[in-house]
Each structure stands twice: as C-alpha cells, then as structure tokens.
C-alpha cells in the first residue's frame, strides 16, 4: 500500500483504488498522486492473478492497464463484468494505445473511463474523483 504522506485524518474512510499496471515508475507516480489526493492505493502487476487480487481486495475502483504480462486488461475487464460480484465495479482503462478501436473495445466490454498514456496527473485525479468521489 502506498501512502505519500498522511494528509487525511481518517484513513479508514479513504476510498480504495486498485492499480493494475506493470511499469514500476508509472506505479510509483500514480500511487503517489492518488495517495496524496486521499485514496488508499493498492497495486498489482500481473494479469494472470489480477482477478484473485480484485476479489480479495474489494477495491472501490480499478485503474486497469491494457498491456499486462500474462493476460490483457481487456480480458480482465471481460471477467469483471461477467462476475456478478464485480460487474458494477468502476473501471478506468489505462493504455498506451489510444487507437479508436481500443477505446471502442473498452467501451463495449463495459469500461467506465478510458485514459490514454501519456496522461496528465490532474486529469487522472479528476476522473477518479468523478467516479468514486473524494
């Protein structure tokens, strides 16, 4: 779990974001800015075991990269939407491939948001806030 610094008095109430991404420096940067914005951030790097992690963590939302080792973010999203216990979980897809067909696929599979790399930190925070509140 990442904590940039303790800005919030009551961390138990902090919303939990699960970041599924395999690039360590992007993990650090995103974790830092979301923690600083008051979220509790958990991370996971492997596509194959991502579903187990999601079921165990029960996050409030997921930031999901498309290109992951083992299994693609699209496959994970498909599983998420097929499982009644996770079908309503808010998901923001994060990908380096900003092509229209990827966005269309993400939307068709039920992604709530789609963020193309390189992204602006403020924009990520604003979208997360819009999806699950502060």
């Amino acid at each position, binding site marked *: 779990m990442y904590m*940039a*610094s303790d800005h919030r008095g009551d961390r138990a109430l902090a919303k939990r974001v699960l970041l599924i991404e395999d*690039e360590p*420096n*992007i993990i*650090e*940067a*995103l974790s*830092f*800015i979301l923690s*600083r914005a008051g979220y509790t951030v958990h991370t996971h790097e492997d596509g194959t075991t991502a579903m187990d992690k999601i079921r165990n963590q029960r996050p409030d939302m997921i930031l999901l990269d498309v*290109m992951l080792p083992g299994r693609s973010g699209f496959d994970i999203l498909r599983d998420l939407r097929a499982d009644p216990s996770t079908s309503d979980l808010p998901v923001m897809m994060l990908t*380096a*491939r900003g092509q229209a067909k990827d966005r269309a696929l993400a939307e068709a599979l039920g992604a709530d948001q789609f963020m193309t*790399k*390189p*992204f*602006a*930190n*403020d924009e990520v925070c604003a979208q997360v806030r819009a999806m699950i509140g502060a």
Partner: protein
Amino acid sequence: MDRTGDRIRARRMDAGVAQRDLAAAVDISASYLNLIEHGKRPVGGQLLRRIAATLGIDLALLERPADPSLIDRLLAASARLPQVPTEVAQVEDLAARFPGWTGLITAQAQEIMSLDDRLQMLNDRLTYDPDLAKALHGVITAVTAIQSTATILTGDGPVDADWQARFHANIRDDAGKLAATSRALVAYLDAPDDLERTRLSPLEARDAILNASGYHRPHLEDPAQLEPEPPARQGVADLLARYDEVYAADVAALPIASFVTAARALDCDPVGLAARLGQPLDRVMRRLASLPAKAGLPDHGLMQVTASGAVLLLKQAAGFDMTRGSDCALWPVYTALGQAGRCVTARVAVHGQNDRHLQCHAVAVAAPNPLGPHAPPVMTSTMLVRSLPEPPDPLSLPVGLACRMCPRDDCAARREPAVPATQL
C-alpha cells in the same frame, strides 16, 4: 468488331485528306468510303492496299488491330484515374499510332500500381509490425512515467525528501530507457537497405522466380540438369522448396515424355487425362501448367487458393490476367470450394478484357488436418485456365477481375460499385 474503318478514318484525318479526295484517289465513291469508315462495309485486299499507299502509311497499320492486352492495359490505366476523361473510343487508334507513348502510359500505370502495393505493404508493416509496436509502446511508457513524475516534482503539492530522491532516480531511469528505445527506433526507421521490409512478400517473390521459367523446373525433370541456387531469403527458399517437393512427386507420377504424348492426344483435357492416367485432377492441372514451352502445347494459367480465398500460387497466361488483388467470386476456383473433389468446368467470359474467352477447370481438395478427423480439413482449390480462340457465346459464364474495375451492373456477386463508369 472490325475497327479497320476507324483506323482508315483516323489516318485520313491525320493526313488532312478529305473523304471525297481519298475516295477519288482509290476509285470509289465518297459515300462508299463513308460506309467503310463507319464499319458498315468490309474492306480488305487491293482496296485497303491502295488506301494505305494513298495515305502514305504501312498497310499493317490499317490492317492489324492493336495488341488486345495493350488495349486492356491502357483502359485499366484510364480506369484508375476516372477523374481524367480519356477518349476511350480511340484507344485502339492511340495504341496503333503511338506505340512509344502508349508504352510510357502502361509502364507508368504499372509503376503506380507497384508503388501502391509497396505503400500498402509499408502501411501494413507500420500498423502490424510487432517490433515497431513494442518500441513505440516503450517510448510512450517512458514518456508517461517521466511526465507524471516531473509534474509531481514541479507541482505545488508537498513531496518529502525521500520521495523526491526516489522520483529523481525514476526520471533518470526512464530517460535512459527512452534514449535506448529512441536509438533503436531511429535505427529501425533509418534502414532503407533492409530488403526484408520492402521487397515482395515471400509468396510473390517465389512466384516471380517460378514465372521466369514458366513454373517449369528442369532439374526436377532431368537429373542431368543443374539445380539452381536457392534464393537468399529463407522464407522464399522455404516456399520454393515446398513447391519443388510437390513438383517432384508430380514428376514421379507423371513423367514428362509420356505425359506430353497423352496431353497432346487428349488436347490437354485435364479431366480426360486424369481418368486415363489414373492420377488426381489437381496433379494433372499442375503438370499441364508447368510444361516447358518447347513441348508445343497451349499455355495454361494456374491458380491455387485456400478456403478463405488467399492466393497460394498464381501463374498468369495468355488472356488470364488475374492478380492477387482480384476478388470476383464467380471464378470456378472459388465455386469449386463449395463441392470438394468435384471438377467445376466452365467457359468464362472476362468482361473488359476484350471479351476474352477462357476454359476453366477447378477442383478443391481437402487435406486431412494433422490434429485429427475432428478438426477441419485444409482445403486447397486449384484452377487450370486456357484461352479459347472463339469469342464468348451466351452460354459463357461472365466473370470479372475485381468489382471496382468491372462494368457489369447486373451482377449478383457485385459487392461494391465500379470506380469508373467508362463508356466503351
């Protein structure tokens, strides 16, 4: 249609001779010459010779129709740029009178087509090349990390000393990755001599090699013949080796001398030959299409496609100008896929090709799938094509090369409109 009259008229007008003057010079009435020029009276023999002499031109220029394949190439060149109106009715005249210019037009059209193909191939490579995709992904990933980290460091929010040190190290790390990926990317894009990337596809390259010998492989027919050097590109060499493997088996089953004798006796009828020689029809077709010119038998085209229509082999022949981009589903090579093992025989009329008339035999053969009988067999359809001397008749099956180039409006197989509405 005999266009001799058109040619006389064009030459006369070139020479600035009035109809009545030419008629007088060759001892016919002006109205009779008018009928000749409009194709309503035949002309030949002495009269044509006198007309040529009067106009001061070679008789052959009036007599001989231009090479039909040249006309087709000119019409195709015109059809590719429909926004430029051309005098289509005078195409034969153009070909006869300006062989140099028509050569230039057709060579340029060919060049444009090959550049288009090259462009498409490069475009595909940029889109699908896994190396390039990986490199670009690496660049975007590094840039994303650097941008996000730099924004944190330069922003208003608090960042303690430990995190600052960590982020500085991350930026250095990502900058290093970015530099390495950029160098690799530049090296990739700056490699004009990398022939693997820009040449013909392996199948096209193999067909180009085979085309030079009419798909005949002398060293497999006669052990005394020298085996040619294999091509340098591994993919092409592998495809050629596979062709040779099938070829050698065909030779073993149908040795050339007896096969040529039988083919001559049966006028190259593949169905009759398969029955008489007790061999599979597709083998007989391959054999007929790869005989050397010295055998003195008619030239045959050959096409092999997969069940998805992908072209495995394409040997063009007189009147059979099919290309890999052709997409008319009416050709027997495709219809044969619907009834594997049965020969589909048809006389086809290729519209827009000076109404060429071709005899086609096609058969689809299902090879067992190595995974087992539960898996779909691998289908290959083979078509043998031979030019017929007589013009198409109402029973000939109309086919085209590609919808975009085909003027037939009443075609049930039409997928998309023709590009040019050229009035022939």
